[in-house]
């Protein structure tokens, strides 16, 4: 286990690893749907912050999934 890695980064990367059989765009959608379904909003906010900060080691599927998730959230609010 990578010490010092924020929990949200570790968990999101782990989800991405388990979706690696899917094409990247589909994996990002699945990841976004999973996080939307199971993560508390503050955890999502921390993930968005990590993505915004360009955190090292974020899986590209996570970055794209976070983008989709944020877009979806904004659309729901808007």
């Amino acid at each position, binding site marked *: *286990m*990578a*010490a010092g890695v924020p*929990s949200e980064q570790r*968990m999101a990367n*782990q*989800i991405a*690893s*388990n*979706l*690696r*059989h*899917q094409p990247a765009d589909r994996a990002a959608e699945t990841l976004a749907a*999973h996080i939307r*379904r*199971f*993560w*508390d*909003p*503050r*955890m999502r906010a921390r993930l968005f912050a990590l993505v915004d900060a360009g955190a090292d080691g974020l899986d590209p599927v996570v970055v794209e999934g976070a983008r989709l998730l944020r877009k979806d959230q904004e659309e729901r609010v808007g």
Partner: protein
Amino acid sequence: MTLLKEPDFGTPERPGAATVSVEVDGLPVTVPEGTSVMRAAALAGVDIPKLCATDSLEPFGSCRLCVVEIDGRRGTPASCTTPCAEGMVVRTQTPKVEKLRQGVMELYISDHPLDCLTCSANGDCELQDMAGAVGLRQVRYGYEGENHLDAEPDKSNPYFDFSPSKCIACSRCVRACGEVQGTFALTIEGRGFDSKVSAGAGEAFMDSECVSCGACVQACPTATLQEKSVVQLGMPSRSVVTTCAYCGVGCSFKAELRGDELVRMVPYKDGGANEGHSCVKGRFAFGYATHPDRKLKPMVREKITDPWREVEWDEAIRTVATRMRAIQETYGPSSIGAISSSRCTNEEVYVVQKMVRAAFGNNNVDTCARVCHSPTGYGLKQTFGESAGTQDFRSVAEADVIMVIGANPTDGHPVFASRMKRRLREGAQLIVVDPRRIDLVRSPHIEAAHHLQLKPSTNVAVINSMAHVVVTEALVDQGFVADRCEGFDEWAEFVALPENSPEATEPITGVPADQLRAAARLYAAAPNAAIYYGLGVTEHSQGSTMVMGMANLAMACGNIGREGVGVNPLRGQNNVQGSCDMGSFPHEFTGYRHVSDDAVRTVFEELWGRELLPEPGLRIPNMFDAAIDGSFRGLFVHGEDIAQSDPNLQHVSAALAAMDLVVVQDLFLNETAKFAHVFLPGASFLEKDGTFTNAERRVNRVRAVMKPKTGKHEWQIVCEIATAMGYPMAYDHPSQIMDEIARVTPTFKGISFDVLDKLGSVQWPCNDDAPEGTPTMHVDAFTRGKGQFMVTTYVPTDERTTSRFPLVLTTGRILSQYNVGAQTRRTENVAWHPEDVLELHPLDAENRGIRDGDLVTLASRVGRTTLKAQVSDRMPPGVVYTTFHHPVTGANVVTTENSDWATNCPEYKVTAVQVGLAHPLARHSSESVGADRLAAVD
């Protein structure tokens, strides 16, 4: 209620549609073919005297008390061993048989102590009853002849005595040990007059293979095998039928009392889960309920460094409500939450999640099922559409192949294991998938056809390879898949990839390819093949993937939707299934419906009168993270010891210590209570009124044997906290809570206390379509419509062995102890397991200079502890094993916070560790263990 005496029909029921009609003492009776004359007579209302016969055991025909006359047949056959034949005319009371029976009784009584008035079984002795039934008036042989009256009693077992002087050598105990329990620890030693019951090879019971299930005590017709509690307290006078609060089997028991004192727990024959059987925990280990350690008064303290102060309930509840609200005012509505307990009733769990969602105003509720079977909920929901096992326990009797994956039923679910062992003795084939050579692999009259001794963390690679064999060798049930499933082509293409072949995965899993292929063929070719699994599946970083992998395999082979097949989780605690059903997960309401579902949320909002959040709340590990970052500051912990049971205890401790308010409700001041500001004393299961739901979805009544010793029911306390926080919650009786559950939960629509009292128990779904419940799920269609194949890529765990931590630790439980041991450590069960030990292979032991019994250090990247070594080749080289029943050892000090990718269920089963002698220069030291348990090594 008076003492409940269940009818004993003498011999077991015979299944089958064909019947025969006979006449017994002039009474006509029609019974299934194969039914004994004795049972037919009992069904006609005629009790034939008997001693060696009882309906939990196959007929034996040794006592000769049950002789009858049958028209047209010579002699006086034993009614227990004589099957009914069409038109048979039986006479049970004739001068001839009466004389024979009296003669038999004279012989028995001539070698039996005549101490009925002072005997512990007085009033509950079949020998005594039969002496009366046959009209015994004399013993012509006298009492002076050679006898067994001086035979020494064996009092070695903490729960029952063996008094051979009272034994009539009926063999009921021996047969119960074999037929019912499947242990075969007892035998009849010697011949003729020297015949005597013997445990093991003439050993004391405690030194033998006896597992203290109590089946022999239950079967004994005299006081030969007698509960010590009956000897000490006397014969009970009333019964209350209730449900065991230990494992997920959910056995029904008669709690038998004398006045208000519980004398013994006797397994209930009509219990759907156990059908009259029990284990050492449910049968005997109930003393914790009255243990002096138990706390009965609420307590509060300002800081966790302050001493506890006993207070009245009003103050304790007011303190919780005031401090919770204060936290929310400062840090926001989502800054508090609760953890519900799988040990509590459905009704208690329901009100906890209702308190969180409606009174706290957030969804920060999770259950201890998070750390055991949350991947089951996820995986089976994705594939089958329902977060529950597919079968009832009886189903195993129809299985031709049984695959046990990551479970140790003889220790973890012993009463179900007895059912399984019976089927295996009848000829079903067994596949065991486990790193450890569990007892089922080879035990009396049982030997696994295949033991796939895989490396820890490689479950998914194994199940994918089994699927590879099924797909590439054309073993798929094409009809089932075509009619009932979807997503097959993509999945089949995936598992057929060369990387999933047994030959390709052998280096990863350690399972020889030819053995894996043979096991897959065996499973796929069986008319009925059933999968049973435990925490060795779920508690991995790919726990959810593995659950889906098993579901895939079952669907591919058409092993869903009838008796004898299925995918069946063996749930850890008594109400894991129920706590999940009751909406304990932060993302789901009751019945596994997501909080974002507007239609579902509206149902609850209208009933509860509060707007509810559509977003999921924090799961347990997320709560700990949020506590450390300061956004989560108040926690209500209901009946769970997270400071002992959860992984990476340093992290848990830091999280608990960071909170402004920790409320613990429990029987004892547990490890978590060390971090608590308010302690609310809980009620034992003997004081509860409600329901538990076991691993087969069976909703069973829990009935109060006595009033709560704390003065309040736990559901009342929760309601009062919610009310004090400004959200009135009140019920007059727990049945009203179940009525509310039924109102808001389609799968529980037909369940009420009245229905349960009438039917005994019900397996959900119970609704208009299935008013008496659903023993087998997905019969004609899956809950989700079509079964969904899911691609299950194997992803190795991040937890890797290194030169510094070269061994893999896996954890589990043993028969005599339960979970963190809070209950069982406070009973005589400590006689079997006074401390946790570390099992390691002789090779690993030798390499480290470790001998059996040495004190060793067990260190991982996150912590270290010390415990005694037990050198055992049950483990493969490179893998070590321990239990987490004792806080002094603190096995979870070393487990990491690695978790399942989908559910955050901790990866308890895989921790890279190093083991070494704790005191290399002082072998076999008796120094106290665990002193350095919190000293981090990395």
